[in-house]
């Protein structure tokens, strides 16, 4: 299989997966009992008004019409309007997505760098104290539910020591100060970093064990390969040999990195809620409670799309790092 054909096939596959995810979500949400109008009725709205609302929003149309409307709109980047807030879903989600991303991307990246480094160290010194016992605190941290870690961090560093705020994105003062500035300006403040420190630490604690363990095992495995002995007898200095090992051993870690990243976006709901962080996870919980289908459906789609696209990116990058991939089946 030529490289080009491999990339084209992989791209088509990705598009298909995105469509499949969007469709499955549609089916799933339409099969759930109850919708937004039930909640309106429950809240004591006039049945006639509710019926008018249903007609207005196209909820009485046959499913295939709704589906057609949904999928064509999604294809051009229109995810509908939030029933609860009456603003376009994309507009509502955009900032929240960014908030999640700016917490998770550096957190996961740092966890992966630190974890890989630790795994490399532990893997190279098999049987040493750091290899045997160093992993225990890392697994201990990773085994805690993320919200427990988050609460501990708040109790210790926010309540007792008072070094960091207990939650939120920025203080009201900062918000006022940059009210007229471009939206991204407020993220470039010390105040933001101060608020981000604890949630960031919570993310790192939660995700550190995975790259550490994978890298450690991977380094063990790589050391059994023939070229390790060959690199030694050809007289390569330790640094060069370590570079060869690290490059090989990091392959499985690279596969996992974007997967962790996207899973974190959906999975760190609890950290976001504990720290009162206005991210996508919090938006999801609000949306579910309000039966705000367009929002929830789109957030789910985003999470699925992230994972699909991340895997796509990994395969492409892999093809560049590991030349054996692209010629599979040659």
């Amino acid at each position: 299989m030529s490289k080009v054909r491999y990339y084209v096939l992989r791209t088509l596959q990705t598009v298909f997966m995105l469509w499949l995810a969007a469709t499955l979500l549609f089916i799933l949400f339409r099969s759930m009992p109850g919708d937004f109008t039930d909640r309106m009725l429950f809240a004591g709205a006039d049945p006639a008004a509710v019926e008018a609302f249903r007609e207005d929003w196209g909820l009485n149309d046959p499913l295939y019409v709704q589906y057609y409307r949904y999928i064509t709109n999604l294809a051009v980047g229109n995810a509908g309007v939030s029933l609860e807030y009456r603003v376009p879903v994309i507009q509502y989600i955009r900032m929240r997505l960014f908030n999640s991303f700016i917490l998770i991307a550096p957190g996961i990246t740092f966890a992966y760098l630190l974890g890989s480094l630790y795994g490399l160290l532990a893997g190279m010194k098999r049987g040493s104290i750091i290899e045997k016992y160093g992993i225990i605190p890392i697994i201990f941290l990773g085994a805690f539910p993320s919200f427990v870690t988050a609460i501990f961090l708040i109790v210790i560093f926010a309540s007792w020591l008072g070094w960091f705020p207990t939650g939120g994105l920025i203080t009201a003062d900062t918000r006022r100060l940059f009210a007229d500035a471009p939206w991204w300006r407020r993220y470039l403040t010390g105040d933001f970093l101060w608020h981000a420190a604890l949630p960031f630490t919570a993310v790192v604690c939660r995700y550190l064990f995975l790259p550490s363990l994978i890298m450690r095992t991977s380094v063990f495995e790589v050391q059994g390969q023939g070229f390790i002995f060959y690199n030694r007898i050809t007289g390569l200095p330790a640094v060069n040999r370590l570079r060869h090992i690290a490059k090989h051993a990091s392959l499985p870690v690279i596969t996992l990195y974007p997967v962790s990243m996207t899973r974190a976006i959906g999975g760190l709901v609890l950290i976001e809620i504990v720290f009162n962080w206005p991210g996508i996870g919090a938006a999801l919980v609000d949306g579910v409670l309000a039966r705000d289908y367009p929002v929830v459906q789109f957030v789910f789609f985003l999470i699925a799309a992230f994972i699909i696209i991340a895997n796509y990116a990994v395969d492409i990058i892999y093809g560049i790092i590991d030349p054996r991939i692209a010629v599979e089946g040659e």
Partner: protein
Amino acid sequence: MSEQPILELDDVTIQYRTAGGMLTAVSDASFTIGKGEYFGLVGESGCGKSTIAKTLIGALDDNGQISSGEIRYKGEPIQDYTEKQFNQELRWKEISMIPQGSMNNLDPIEKISNQAIEIAQVHTDMTRAEALERFEELFEVVGIQKSRIHDYPHQFSGGMEQRAIIALALFLNPSLIIADEPTTALDVIMQDQVFKYLDEIREEGGASMVLITHDISLVFESCDDIAIMHSGQIAETGDIETIYDDSRHPYAFMLKGAFPDHRYPDRELEIIDGYPPENMGEVNYCTFVDRCPYAVDECREMAPELEQWEGTESDHLVACFRSEDAYEEHQRSMPESDSESTEVHGDD
């Protein structure tokens, strides 16, 4: 041999620390390799051949150690060299190696040319261009198109990868090449080709070679001298002609009898019963004793030393108390194998 030998082993004992104690892999081994000489080291698997190979390039496993004896490379004792000394003074510039199972020796995710450049830049002042030019030259020597130096290892067949490893072994013009089972994974035709290249190398440069193999006939075809090992001990050593026609150690002539000989196509192949022992601690017996039909009590009481075989001028050394009687008994049991001398290299 008036010239300074390339390599001398003097009563070298190599042991591995194991859960059960010190496992003696090589016991009091001695041999000498002259300049430009091809030296074959033969024996069954587990007899210590590869341990010797690894020791020579300083890459003994972590639990291995040279317990006694001296290894001299060009007169310089190297048995106590550190990893750093091996890297700076010996590896690849002086001693290179074609390791066992060459299929996985190259880093699969790096171009072969880049791996060659890395080796060149670690050990020499060669520029990238010079290194590539030298490597291209060698690819032609081993019969691979020179454009293919930029391939990845997985794009090569097993035989090609093996030849690339040979090219790399020659890369920095070493004085000694250690070839550890260089053709084990290859089919017969490929084996033949590889040996053709190894022969060409001999004609070209003055590199000496240690050829390690379990296939005694390969050594008879391509080497000058031979040592036959059994379970850590060198049983017999000498030049090819002598060992081929006139081996005196029971293991040596039984091993020869176990391989087909085109001079006696109808002869039944001999079988050496039993397995080589695992030797723990000091080896003060002949390791072949349990498998040797000619053994006497003396063989269990002390280790035989390599001694000059009487009546020969060349360095024909045999380590056996019973070699004379055993040889006679063996000759009587095989009436058809007369002592008439035959040309050794005349196989092809």
